[in-house]
């Protein structure tokens, strides 16, 4: 009887530990003032669009010199970002830093690459579409099957839900021949027909080797990427850039980022701010002159400008902003339970703890509770008092309601 | 002395701050039919609820067959037949289903007793109880209790919603059964006429207390109404053994357990000038009103 009551109180407290901080967030959350940062190939400094609290509107400025620009001026300061606008206006310089600038070069070298933790941490159905890479057609067409990679590679025909044994064996033979160790740890590809060309999949096998899989003229193409021994790949994202200069980004076990280049699969390290693929967001905004590498983490937003050709650091800065994650009334709410997070699509319980000072609040609440049960002429109960001392306001509210 | 089937010891109950009663004590010996009489709100249902274990009294306890009523064992529950207020039964069953249902719980189930009563109702065995009249439902509820053959019957306000024919049928059946089988019965009703034909002992409650607890015969033999003319009725209030004196235009009515001679002696002692004292015998209903007042 008493035990059931405690079960109810525990459940009620946990629900409050989830819903109270959530409501607190709903009321108090504010957007980060920094909206956009980009390295200016003209000013040779980071420029930003920010929300100005005093002015009450967006301002555009050079964050090194604090010079404020008009919208029109800002286009010319960031010619690579606003290239379409400048080409349309005829305001684009013919060359910058000795590099010829024309629409073809800009468009082929300009790309956006974004990685969010939730892209990696999400439920994924392990079926993959392998396109024909040399179909001779301009448009990529659906291949009529998908493959699975477990202890072997198998192609399945969606229309019949049956395995294409012949094709499976043909490919599997190749996998064995090339020394692929099943099962695969991950396969990265871009299964979309809306792209200029197809480079298939980059697959990490059970021995942490990377293989490049394509289908060329209906035949398997499987190549092992030569990896330096110190690189243990953890996560790969492929890209099919217009200039065909690289295949994929590799995040390794030492939290370093590498490119798999199209130059015989050579790896090139990309300097980045400290980055954790499971917690932080990364965005690379590339142009023919500089790569902007942005990392948003609990420290704020760190931006780095790299020379596009050498990937050497040209400049870097940290924009301290609102920290991501733990933000709730630390002295009142002892902890916060969450089930969803921006870092994962999975539902799983997460607990954030507040400050130790909340124990003072908890102790006071436990004391108030003791007085209340005295007033209600109930007998002293040890367990609810201890529970309130641990769970503070959550246990207090539920005990008041359910402990009569 | 026969063994008491029900024993209530020092029952005290309050609803919030309102006192229902304090230190209520009574027992029901085996084979007796005890009627609990009281106006609305004097705690009849409270007592029944405590007895059935659906209410925990503020203090005191109630024993049935020696077990605390708050926590009856299945064996004891099997020995108790329960009629809840309004003859409530599982109305989603029909009369043969409900018979089959209950028969599973009681090894001494007396199917014939139930169907004998059902025959009188002239109801199709497939008819659902929810479609029956209140009177018919009361017979189903009674029939089930008779078939259960319990040692103790607890009936809460059995007369509620019944027309006179069904009330009489109910009382006749019940009293015949209880007498023949030597059953113990605890019954409440607000129609006291019915009780007179049924009960052996009565427990009369008023707000916050018991006013009388006696066998009915004894009560009716000794509890009388006296009518007389009186010039100084104010003095009567000082006499403690007189109930509910009322004087209208010099004609006074009092109720008392005292005999006529004893009353006259008391009047003399308290200087009450009463003449033409008329002694009247009472029905149970009149006695109830005499004890609890009209209001």
């Amino acid at each position, binding site marked *: *009887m008493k035990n*059931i*009551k405690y*079960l*109810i109180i525990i*459940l*009620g407290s946990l*629900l409050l530990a*989830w*819903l109270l901080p959530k409501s607190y967030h709903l009321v108090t959350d504010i957007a980060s003032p920094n909206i956009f940062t980009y390295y200016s190939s003209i000013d040779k400094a980071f420029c930003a669009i920010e929300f100005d609290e005093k002015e009450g509107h967006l301002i555009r400025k050079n964050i090194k010199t604090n010079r404020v620009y008009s919208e029109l001026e800002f286009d010319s300061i960031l010619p690579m970002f606003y290239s379409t606008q400048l080409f349309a206006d005829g305001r684009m310089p013919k060359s910058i830093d000795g590099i010829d600038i024309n629409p073809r070069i800009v468009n082929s070298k300009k790309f956006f690459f974004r990685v969010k933790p939730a892209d990696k941490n*999400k*439920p*994924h*159905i392990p*079926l*993959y*579409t392998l396109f024909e890479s040399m179909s001779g057609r301009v448009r990529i067409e*659906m291949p*009529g099957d*998908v493959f*699975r990679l477990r202890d072997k590679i198998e192609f399945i025909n*969606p*229309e019949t*839900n049956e395995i294409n044994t012949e094709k499976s064996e043909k490919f599997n033979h190749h996998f064995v021949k090339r020394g692929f160790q099943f099962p695969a740890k991950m396969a990265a590809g871009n*299964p*979309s027909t809306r792209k200029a060309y197809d480079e298939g999949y980059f697959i990490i096998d059970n021995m942490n080797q990377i293989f490049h899989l394509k289908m060329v003229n209906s035949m398997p193409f499987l190549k092992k990427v030569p990896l330096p021994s110190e690189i243990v790949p953890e996560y790969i994202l492929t890209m099919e850039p217009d200039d065909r200069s690289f295949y994929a980004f590799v995040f390794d076990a030492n939290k370093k980022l590498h490119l798999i280049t199209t130059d015989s699969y050579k790896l090139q390290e990309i300097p980045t701010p400290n980055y954790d693929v499971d917690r932080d967001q990364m965005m690379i905004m590339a142009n023919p002159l500089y790569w902007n590498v942005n990392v948003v983490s609990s420290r704020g937003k760190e931006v780095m400008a790299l020379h596009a050709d050498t990937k050497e650091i040209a400049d870097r800065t940290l924009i301290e902003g609102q920290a991501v994650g733990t933000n709730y009334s630390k002295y009142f709410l002892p902890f916060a339970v969450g*089930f969803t997070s921006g870092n994962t*699509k*999975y*539902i*799983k*319980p997460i607990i954030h703890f507040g400050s130790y000072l909340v124990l003072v609040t908890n102790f006071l609440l436990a004391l108030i509770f003791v007085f209340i049960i005295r007033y209600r002429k109930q007998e002293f109960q040890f367990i609810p008092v201890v529970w309130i001392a641990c769970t503070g306001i959550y246990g207090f509210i539920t005990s008041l309601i*359910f402990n009569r | 002395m026969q063994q008491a089937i029900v024993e209530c010891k020092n029952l005290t109950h309050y609803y919030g701050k309102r006192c229902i009663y304090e230190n209520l004590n009574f027992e029901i010996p085996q084979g007796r039919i005890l009627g609990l009489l009281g106006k609305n709100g004097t705690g009849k249902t409270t007592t029944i609820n405590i007895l*059935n*274990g*659906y*209410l*925990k009294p503020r203090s005191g306890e109630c024993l049935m067959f020696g077990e605390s009523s*708050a926590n009856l*064992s*299945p*064996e004891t*529950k*099997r020995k108790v037949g*329960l009629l*809840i207020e*309004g003859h*409530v*039964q*599982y*109305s*989603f*069953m029909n009369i043969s*289903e409900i018979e*089959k*249902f*209950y028969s*599973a*719980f*009681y090894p001494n189930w007396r199917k014939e007793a139930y169907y004998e009563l059902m025959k009188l109702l002239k109801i199709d065995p497939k008819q659902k109880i929810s479609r029956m009249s209140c009177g018919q439902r009361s017979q189903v509820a009674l029939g089930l209790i008779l078939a259960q053959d319990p040692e103790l019957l607890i009936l809460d306000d059995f007369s509620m919603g019944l027309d006179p024919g069904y009330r009489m049928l109910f009382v006749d059946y019940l009293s015949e059964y209880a007498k023949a089988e030597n059953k113990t019965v605890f019954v409440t009703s607000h129609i006291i006429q019915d009780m007179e034909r049924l009960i052996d002992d009565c427990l009369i409650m008023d707000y916050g207390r018991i006013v009388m607890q006696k066998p009915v015969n004894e009560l009716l033999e000794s509890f009388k109404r006296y009518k007389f003319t009186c010039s100084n009725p104010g003095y009567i209030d000082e006499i403690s053994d007189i109930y509910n004196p009322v004087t209208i235009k010099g004609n006074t009515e009092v109720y008392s357990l005292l005999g006529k001679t004893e009353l006259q002696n008391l009047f003399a002692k308290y200087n009450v000038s009463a003449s033409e004292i008329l002694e009247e015998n009472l029905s149970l209903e009149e006695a109830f009103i005499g004890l609890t007042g009209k209001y």
Partner: protein
Amino acid sequence: MTNALLFKEWKKTKWFAIGAFAVGLALLAYIFLKLGRSFRLVGLEHLWDVIVNRDQFLFRDLKYFPLATGFCLALAQFVPEMIQKRIKLSLHLPLPNKKIVFSMLGFGLLALTIIFVLHVAIVLAFAGIYFPKEIISSIIYTILPWYVAGITAYTFMSWICLEPTWKRRIFNALIMFGTLQLCFLTDFPGAYGLIILAVLLIPFYVLPFGYFSVQRLKVGIQD
């Protein structure tokens, strides 16, 4: 005796249980017809593609069916007990109270489980024809929390019905809504994959609550 008790529960809920099953079948028929149409119009290859690469889920219409079934079953079973305090009759049956209450709740759980298992079996049998095991397992992880929500809704609603006071019923309902939310946190297919076992335990955690309210009723707590 327990059989008789189960018979009583069956009498109360028979039409509801059959009805819920029929509604469930109708819902499945509707979903299957709708899917059959997509198979013809866009083809299975495209459907597989949007399921795998664009996180589409084909059985979203099932989402609230178990929840509604759980609510209604509890109401069908316990409202007749609470009207005119019929529960007093049930608790007076010559069995221990615990056994009476948990037999009643057990009946409801069993009835729901049968309805749900048949329902899920039909879904999976259908899906098994058109989809590979990878997609089937994603379907299971996605719909399971909904069915658990149905069973949880049943246990909570029984608790609310059996509770003798209205004030406490409201608090119970708040706890119910909070807890049920846990089964509907996201629409993303397979998102419960990591904690599915914990989700399965929720109804068992809640089950004894009903007995708690019966105990409150036994000591005569009322409005």
